[in-house]
């Protein structure tokens, strides 16, 4: 009832959950055998920025626009091309619709000949 059988394989979520719970327990036990000298709330856990003055907490949060900056910068050409049709003008949306209809009908008519 739970497992999904398809073609040549099977996906059994309940078996997967049981396996994850067992792995989780093993990781938890392993973690508890780790470093004992760690102490929360001491200088051990202070932020270190190569000796520079650490800004206040609320200024340390990385804004959404800065996340994946390198990814967007390296794909600038692709993004410029993708952004271009997104004009926000409904007339342009309809021009796209007419163009796609023309191409689709042409393909279908040619395929049926």
């Amino acid at each position: 009832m739970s497992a999904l059988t398809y073609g040549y394989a099977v996906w059994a979520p309940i078996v997967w959950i049981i396996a994850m719970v067992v792995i989780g327990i093993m990781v938890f036990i392993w973690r508890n055998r780790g470093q004992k000298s760690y102490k929360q709330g001491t200088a051990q856990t202070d932020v270190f920025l190569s000796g520079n003055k650490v800004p206040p907490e609320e200024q340390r949060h990385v804004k959404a626009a800065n996340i994946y900056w390198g990814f967007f910068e390296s794909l600038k050409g692709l993004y410029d091309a993708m952004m271009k049709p997104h004009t926000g003008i409904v007339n342009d949306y309809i021009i796209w619709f007419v163009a796609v209809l023309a191409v689709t009908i042409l393909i279908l008519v040619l395929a049926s000949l």
Partner: protein
Amino acid sequence: MDSLIYHSPALIVALPLVAAFAIPLISRAGYRVRSTFSLVILGLVTFLVAVLAVDVHTVGIRVYTFGATAAELALPGGYMVPVRIMFQVDGMSIFMGIIITTVTLAALIYSIHFMKAGDMFNLFVFLEIASIAGAGLAAYRTNMADALEGGFKYIVVSAISALMVLFAIGILYSQYNVLSIAALANYMQYTTLDMIALGLLGGAFVMKLAGVPLHMWAPDTYTVAPAGTTPMILAASYTSMYALYRITFTLYGAHIDSTAIGWIVIVVGVLSMFVGVMMAVHQTDIKRMMAYHAISQGGYMLLGVGVGLAVLANPVALASYGRDAINGGVFHIINHVFYKALLFMTAEAIFFRIGTRDTNKMGGLARNMKWTAVFYIIGALAISGIPPLNGFASKLLIYETVLQFNPVLAVIAMFVSLVTLASFAKVFYSAFTGPEMPAYREVREVPKSMIIGMAILAACVIFFGIFPGLIVDNLVAPATEALINQAPYINAVMGAVP
């Protein structure tokens, strides 16, 4: 009870219609009375859909003819073709009915605080009703300029698509003198005019389901629609996907070159997946980001069903992976509606409390909005295809089957899932984690009704993820069978071919 089952196809449409006109009157009795009335009606409709689903599952296709001496009488005495208004309910149409009623019920509970056509013309009429209602729902916040703009774009796009659907229906009617899908499928000669009609219908439905490159209206509309209404607009979009499948499989499926049609669907699907996700990861408006993901996830549904359509004429490939590919695409519709409605609700919950959709201005919200954060995580993991949630089960079916059809397509599908996860991780990091922002120190969790609405959808996401076999065997496989095997649909109206 028997009478209720017998008339359920008509009641499912009539009850919400009557209630819609009654609500302005009932509202005069107070806000609580109106909310209770809406909830009771929607609960009743959900119950009727469930009863009809069981009936279709056990008995088979249901035909309901208006004005006939007996509702199941499709052909009046002496007639060769059906002439009355008629509903035809099979596995695929009841599957869509379950999606729409369940998600609408959850959306209604969330908002307290804050199909089944058997002929072409009915299909057009109900799509139009859904579009007009959708435009009104998108422009609900009339005090916001962008809401009016979003609603206006939706109605322009819907009206022009509907015009093309009507034009195509005109082409078919002028040739065959019938409107019934079953009768048309029976008599169709597959002329050049029929192909033009198919192109018009296909283009119009792709526009309405926001497939690339006809998707641009979707972010503008979804972004401004209140989350309580977004699931209904989302469901209207997937009704167009249902219409596309009904046309390609049932109306044209038997004789056309399904490989060419299948590849057109696959190309639209892959473009939707790729462009949708790449645009989504770039957004900083949380609802706009989710709207682009809706386009991207629509691509998975098209990819799965497109692969099935491409191998429809090849019995070996169809049995080997084509049927499972369609199962994956269809299963993804219901999974997507649940987790995407949930994600839109979490985004609206944030907007409800902090008054902005800009993720650049967010941070540390999980401290005060713990339930919203938990529901966001569930939705984000589900849409990214992380086991054991529902998105994984349908995506796994799509990956495995598409891999056998064309490995490059499977690699693109997996890449898109990775970028989806990256995109939702970006929003989670910027909105929910990090230090407490001074401006949001006083922010509180959203009211209970909103939490309950999100909890219902989150429960569906988890349940469908843990019991995918149950859902696929009882809901998805009958829907797929209804698409692949056109004969029972045609015979239910036209009578068995001797």
